[in-house]
């Protein structure tokens, strides 16, 4: 499936918000097709902005973006829409109307590929509820498939947002702090589901994470961001705890953690922390 995936190239992108705040300063990031990268950094580093720029939600004020070798902002309306249908975005706080049922919210991932009449008909009777159920099962939420979204907790709603992207079967998955409201076990499960998309279907994956341990556990390449700039872009094995502490210096001495039993304490060298990463090689 990797021939369908896209490579993602961001060259020296800057973004200034209308209120003058510089969210991104000359950020360059390149991913090959089927690669996966975690973006970490303190709050306000610009991780969300980076994800939105890659998702073609925000147009960078300077620099260039190429997805699959194509600049999306040069495309016509129909071509841009087709490209966007292959990009799946997991939002930190899923923008899902409360009165919608979970099954419809998940199937909304397919809207990019369905013709209009089929989308509307699916509102009345869901067209492929089984696929929605399968996606939700991967996130341990299968039995809530016909419940209303306003009956779910924040963490459950976040998983519905992830399930929507799974249902979309995208070629590029961009996740903006997708597990911030989940407890450690579920956070691990959810990140694992996204990583599985990357490994089995070859989708390119960029995930911004606040918790360092999840990033170190699941991703072979880590990008550190601070104040709108990329501070480091290294394979995980080369990330030292000193680099991490300097990145999160503004947030205190303890690094943000979310996972459980991530660190294999049996192997530790002077300033490199080697971690067990199940299912990666």
């Amino acid at each position, binding site marked *: 499936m990797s021939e369908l995936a896209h490579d993602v190239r961001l060259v020296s992108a800057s973004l200034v918000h209308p209120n003058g705040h510089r969210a991104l300063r000359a950020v360059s990031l390149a991913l090959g097709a089927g690669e996966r990268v975690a973006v970490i950094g303190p709050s306000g580093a610009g991780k969300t902005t980076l994800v939105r720029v890659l998702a073609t939600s925000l147009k960078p004020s300077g620099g260039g973006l190429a997805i699959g070798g194509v600049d999306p902002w040069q495309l016509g309306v129909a071509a841009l829409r087709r490209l966007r249908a292959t990009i799946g975005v997991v939002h930190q706080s899923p923008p899902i109307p409360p009165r919608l049922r979970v*099954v419809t919210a998940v199937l909304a991932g397919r809207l990019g590929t369905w013709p209009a009449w089929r989308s509307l008909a699916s509102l009345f009777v*869901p067209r492929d509820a089984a696929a929605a*159920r399968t996606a939700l099962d991967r996130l341990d939420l299968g039995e809530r498939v016909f419940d209303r979204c306003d009956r779910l907790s924040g963490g459950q709603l976040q998983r519905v947002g992830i399930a929507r992207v799974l249902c979309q079967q995208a070629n590029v998955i961009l996740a903006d702090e997708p597990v911030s409201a989940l407890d450690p076990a579920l956070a691990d499960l959810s990140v694992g*589901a996204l990583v599985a998309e990357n490994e089995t279907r070859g989708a390119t994956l960029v995930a911004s994470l606040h918790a360092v341990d999840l990033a170190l556990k699941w991703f072979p390449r880590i990008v550190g961001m601070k104040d709108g700039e990329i501070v480091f872009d290294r394979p995980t094995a080369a990330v030292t705890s000193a680099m991490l502490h300097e990145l999160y210096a503004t947030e205190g001495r303890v690094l943000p953690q979310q996972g459980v039993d991530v660190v294999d304490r049996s192997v530790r060298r002077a300033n490199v922390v080697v971690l067990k990463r199940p299912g990666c090689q």
Partner: protein
Amino acid sequence: MSAAAETLPAPLRDPAARGRLGALVVAIVVLWPLLALAEFKPWRLLDPGGLQVMANFLAGFLPPSTAPDFLALLAKATVETLAIATAGIALAFVVAVPLAVVATRSLAVSRIGPGPGRAAGTAVRTAARAVLTLLRAIPEVVWALVFVRALGLGPGAGVLALAVTYGGMLGKVYTEILESGDTRSARALLEAGSPRVAALFYALVPSTAQELASYTVYRWECAVRASVVMGFVGAGGLGQLMDQSMKMLNGGEASSILLTFLALVIIADALSAVIRRVLA
């Protein structure tokens, strides 16, 4: 973690699907006879004879009639409409206030405790509310028709019709406003033995006066519109004039009256907004 690829998941039954399809069937089954009852035949709009009459009527709309004696009639009718609305609201106010004072729970002495006379008090309040609902149930135009038959053509029928219906509406809203304001000070006065009217004026009215007045002004604005509508059944004012002009298919007069009516509504709207802002 990935889904098993060997076995296709069985098609999943949506529990809401049956209910929705059922509701759709019921809706169609109910809609059909309703359309028949309402004689819903959109193609009748395209009937050539009707279109011709309509075209002539609309053509007669322009130019609006400006004959001096007609304009004098128009001015008189406009003032009459305003007078009907104002007098009607004044009478409605007189009807509404006693009923509201009786019906409101904020002035109920027997509820404190509860004290003696609770059953009688509740019965009286329920009766007052029922009277208010009854007054509101029949539209004012129907009352106007009845009063025209009883009292003859003219503005008196319109004023009485407004007094009845709008009395019910004002009364209901006054009751609710009195109950939603600061009821504790009124209750304190009642507990100290003050008569209900005193509690009303010393405690409830000061805190709710603005809202009461604001709603009354809004109802006055509606009364202006209603007065025009009631004129169609003979209760005077712009409505009666318009009814006569349309019966004679005099498009020019009808458009003058319509323009005057729209201007009157805009002015009434603006006046009402200004007064409500002053009261705020």
